[in-house]
Structure formats: C-alpha cells, structure tokens
C-alpha cells in the first residue's frame, strides 16, 4: 500500500513539475510574441510616416500646378490656404492623427510664420498641428523630414524648403 501510494505521489510530482516547466515556457513565448508584435507595430507606423512624407508633396492640396498640369513643387499659397480651410474640417484628424506637419523655407531663408495676415516674405507654414490634450500621455515623438521645392506664385519664383512631419506616440 505504501509503495503504491509512493508511486502515485511520485507520478503526481513528475506531472506537476512538467506542467510548471511548460507554463514557464509559455510565459516566455508569450512575452517574446508580444515584443515581436510591438516591434511590428512600430515598423508599421514608421512605414506609414514614410509613405506620408512621400505622398504629401504630391497631394493636390499642396502641389503646384500649371494650367492643370501637376508640378513637382509645393505651392506656398496653397499651403496657407490649406491650413485655413482644413482648420474647420475635423475629418483631417482621422487622416493625420496627432502630428505636426510644417514646411520651412531654407532658401530664401525666413523664420517668420506665415498666416493670412502675413503671407509675404514669410518662411514657416504650419499645415497641420494637433497634440494630445494631456501631454503626459505622450510617450515619444518621431520626426521625419524631406527637402522639397517651393513655388512662390506672387513672384513666380522657386525656392528650397524642408517638409517636417512629427508624429506623437501615446
């Protein structure tokens, strides 16, 4: 009887340890998967940002055009017009989320922000800006930039600018 009981207890112990080892293995596997998924999410968000950086200058809202033909430059008057028109349209938050999109004029250089009252000889266009209401929720910020060609319709001239996209992570 004692020998039998001993044997059963031995079996139970072996099975119990086996289950504990498997559980530990599963916990490690789960953490590894979670990290892998988080890394994929970050990679996706980076790809999304890169796509935005490529497609924004080609969007009809910003790109210059000449009798309907699309040019490879940003129309500075359209940048200002867009920021004024989109401010009243809440659907852009669905498109862009929490980010800042700005264009800086490098040549001719100017650090004056552009607005409807100051659109001559200015050099900073804030196209879109939306920050999370609670700044403590911001975990980080990713910034990408790209050089762009600028077109000034008032003087019919071109310049060089920098398109900067800042995305806030929560």
């Amino acid at each position, binding site marked *: 009887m004692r020998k039998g009981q001993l044997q059963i207890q031995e079996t139970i112990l072996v099975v119990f340890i086996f289950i504990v080892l498997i559980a530990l293995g599963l916990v490690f596997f789960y953490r590894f998967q979670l990290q892998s998924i988080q890394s994929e999410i970050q990679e996706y968000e980076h790809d999304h940002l890169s796509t935005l950086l490529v497609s924004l200058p080609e*969007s009809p809202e910003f790109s210059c055009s000449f*009798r*309907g033909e699309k040019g490879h430059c940003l129309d500075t008057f359209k940048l200002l017009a867009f920021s004024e028109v989109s401010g009243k349209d809440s659907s852009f938050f*669905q498109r862009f989320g929490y980010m800042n999109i700005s264009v800086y004029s490098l040549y001719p250089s100017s650090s004056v922000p552009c607005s409807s009252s100051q659109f001559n000889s200015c050099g900073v266009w804030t196209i879109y800006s939306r920050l999370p209401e609670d700044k403590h929720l911001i975990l980080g910020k990713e910034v990408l930039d790209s050089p762009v060609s600028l077109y000034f319709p008032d003087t019919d001239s071109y310049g060089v600018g920098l398109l900067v996209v800042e995305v806030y992570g929560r």
Partner: protein
Amino acid sequence: MNHKGQTEQFNWIFVLVAGAIILGFFSLFIFKYVELQQKRFNIGISQDLSNAFQVLSTSSVGSSSTIDSSEGFKIGSTALLDFSCTDDQLLLRVNEDPDAVYRFRDEFVFSRSSLRVDSLDLWLKPWFFPFYVGNFVFLSDPDDVFYFVYDASTREEVLSLDIPSIFTVKTVSINDALPERSSLRVVYFTSSLPRSDLDRFSSVSHISLSEKNVRFYEEGRWSDEISFPSDAFVYGAVFSDSSSLFSCLVQKSEERISFLSKVYAQKAHLLSFFDRRPECSYDLLFQRLVSFGKGDYDLLSSLEGENSACMLVF
C-alpha cells in the same frame, strides 16, 4: 495482490487522464498560434496594400502595369480582398478578418467588390476636373475578360475607349452572341437596357455615355441609375461591379472636389492682393470656385477660361 493490481490500474488511469489533458492543452495552443499567425499575415497584407494605395493615389506616374506577388504587392499567397462601403466609408478587408481592415481616405480605387487573387492587374489614371484631383486606381483579376457591347449609336465612342492592353477587353456588337463562359464581365453601352440571360455572367453593367450614368445588374435585377460628374468615371464603372461601391466613390469624389475648390478659392483670394490688374477678376473666380465646389459642375469650362487669364490659380 488485488490492491497491487488496483494500484497499477489507478496509476495508468491517472497517467492517461493527465496525458489527455496535456495533449489537449498543446492542441489548443497550436490552433491559437496558427490563428494568430494568420491574423498577422492578413494585417500585414492590409498594411502593404494601404501603403501602396496611398502612394499610388498621388503618384505622378500614370501607367498601367501588372502587379503580382513577385513584383508589386507581394501578397505571398492567394488572398481574399473585399471592398465595401459602410457609413460612406470605403473599406478593404483581407481574408474576412475584422482586424485586417483598411479605411480608404482620399484614394479612388475601382474594383470588383470581392477579389480572390494572388496577383493584380493595375492601372493608374490621373483625374483632372478641371484641376488635378487625384489618381484613379483600377484593379482587376488577371483572369477577368471584359466584353464591351455596343450598338449602332455608340459604336464610335466605345471603340475610342482607351484601356491598356494588360486587360483582356473584347468589343462586340449587340447582334453578336456572347460566349457561354461564366467568368465574363460584360459592359453594355447600348441605348436600351438589356434584359435577357444576364445571370450567367460574373458581372454586368450598363453605361450611358450620353447621360453619364451607370446601372449594375445585381441579384437578378438592375440597380438605380448612378450619375457621375466626369467621363473619367466611365472607366471606373467598367471596373466596378457594385452600385454601392460606385456610389461611394462618386460621393467621395464630390467631397474631394468640394474641399479642393475651397483651397483654390482661398488661393485666388490671396492672389488678388498681388495682382491688381483690372482684367484679372479673382473675385469672380473665387465665387465660381465656391459654386463649383457646391456641385455646379456646369462651370467647368468657364473655370478653365478664367484660370488662363492672369496669375494661375490652378
């Protein structure tokens, strides 16, 4: 002796039960793991497609190409792509996975409502109305065969339709018999609506080039007429097979025109401060752009004329 035998028996029963539980646990784990990997795969496809559509919708290149898994989208294997319109939002779902959904923003993608493919034929066509609005992206299964049916009154217009050679298109008269194959996509450009024997085709539509409207044959009956603002939508109607999807895209295009008209109107207002020549009527152009954005598309030709007068608005 009896106790020894019973002990042995109980031992075996215990081992079998424990073994079954462990095996069941492992089986459940494997199924869940396979489900998770499938979900990651589906989401990966939807992300790749979303990035591709975003770039294609504003790309400067208007070209036709065959995109397949070895070159373009890299789907990797056969995937089910479902396009739908819900609450005026165009959606793409991959492999019926509720987590692998892409919500289109400003992209105009014309396609069948459901595609089970491992490769895609794709065509980009920039749309001007009168300013550049975006690229139309036309998608098709490489196995699809299009039949354009014309009658005497529409023959010339149908033959002048310019569809790239990557798509298999055959143009026939209303008097010609159509093949018995069920995978055909038939587009009627006839004066009257065809009635008979349409269920055998995979998709049927009727486009009126003169009145700029289209009907789709769905679930055994013709849909209501859907009007479209521009001739470019004729190609969209050719590649679509669903009235709800096509209506969705027409509505999106009107919203897009409305927004872009506001941007150009504001630009015209800014230009008026610099160009004060009496012959330049930026205020008139401003008013016309505002009306155009609200749907008065009859102003199209006058807008083009006004634009070429002074500093270019668009």
